[in-house]
């Protein structure tokens, strides 16, 4: 079947089987390899994308169901070519990336969290990433990265007189 997908602000008209998951469609048809195929049944969280701004599992949705809704993948969060988003930057600085397998999903979950709650507590960060497995078990640095990114994003575009 023919569908139109809106991914990272670009419309793609593609031919998919009804059984093609959104994940396989992103990876194999649109060559966006940032969404990782981990368990492929909704347990690991590595395939997370933003569906209308909300973090969802792309392996638990068929591409045909996603037609017409804006989708953001890790490839869509950078401000420009060769640049990193503040969250990606914070992951680098705190060594939150480890092997990198869970990272795109962790970054997207952090994007969704910080868009909704610019000042999350540690518990809220832990809760937000609780659906994403890091097999390196480097959760401490991931939590640190998200807290650092939150702090920087809150500080951006604020007059110095208001900064702590």
């Amino acid at each position, binding site marked *: 079947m023919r569908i139109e997908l809106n991914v990272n602000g670009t419309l793609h008209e593609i031919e998919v089987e009804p*059984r093609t*998951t959104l994940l396989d469609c992103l990876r194999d048809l649109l060559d966006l390899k940032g969404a990782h195929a981990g368990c492929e049944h*909704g347990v690991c969280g590595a395939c997370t994308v933003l569906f209308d701004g909300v973090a*969802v*599992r792309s392996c*638990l949705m*068929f591409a045909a169901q996603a037609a017409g809704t804006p989708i953001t993948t890790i490839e869509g969060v950078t401000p420009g070519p060769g640049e990193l988003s503040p969250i990606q930057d914070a992951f680098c600085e705190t060594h939150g990336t480890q092997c990198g397998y869970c990272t795109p999903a962790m970054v997207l*979950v952090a994007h969704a969290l910080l868009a909704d709650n610019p000042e999350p507590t540690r518990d809220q960060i832990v809760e937000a990433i609780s659906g994403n497995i890091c097999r390196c078990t480097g959760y401490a640095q991931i939590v640190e990265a998200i807290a650092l990114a939150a702090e920087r994003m809150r500080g951006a575009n604020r007059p110095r007189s208001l900064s702590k």
Partner: protein
Amino acid sequence: MKAAPFEYSRAADIDEACAWLAADDSARVIAGGQTLVPMMVMRLARPTRLIDINRIAALSYIRNDGDGVAIGATTRQCVVERDALVAAQVPLLARAIPNIGHAATRARGTIGGSLANADPAAELPLIAITLDAVLSYRAGEETAEIPAREFFIGPMITTLPAGGCLTGVRFSVWQGEKIGVGFHEVNARRSDFAFVSAAAQVELGADGKCKRIAIGVGAATDFPMRLDSAEQQLTGSTLDAKEVDAAVREALADIDALADLHASAEYRRRAAINLASRAVADAVSHAQGKKAQRNADAH
């Protein structure tokens, strides 16, 4: 991990969905898909056609229709989680929802989908049974309602007729000044399937005694159960810890508890007694205006 081939149809309204369902015995409705899709990729489910009801706007709502808080079948769990009406009028539901899966699955998972799926360990069937919710469905041209206690009859088995499509659920609202709720579950990891869960809602009278109580236990048996005998014994009592423990223990003495690799029947029975007692204790504190306890059932 790829699903077997199927046809995909997106229904514009409930009439269309029901017509398609009636036309094909092997067709299945897909709502949030957070259980159905894993079952399909593991080839435990092989529907010939998926009927997508996600875009039927009339199935997504939360409103008090006079008889209670009615929630449309495709209303997302994350929407109910944040809804002010639900928090105010069906606090037990609001209390239980954060325990369903993870934020990313609640973003897609629906109220009706979880109820229709009838997993013994799922939170929503437990809350529906505890609060005597009424489910509504369409089958062909017919619209019907069914009480939650008559809906769930086995693990992943309901009395929804073949070709039927769940359309909504209505939770009754307890009126009263002092209403409190409690919910507890144990699982291996945060938000995993519960080994045992328990929910309680109480109403205290002006004298502080129990005016009304509902206690439910999930994941321990083939489908969630109500502790009717305990509720009868405890109504009118002061709900002190000993009394509650004895009543709950008696109600759970003869249950045919599920057993698997992770939790034996004996463990489930024991955990059910403890969690149900804790849920009642939390509900009493909550009704007395003390701060609600967060779920802290880690081993």
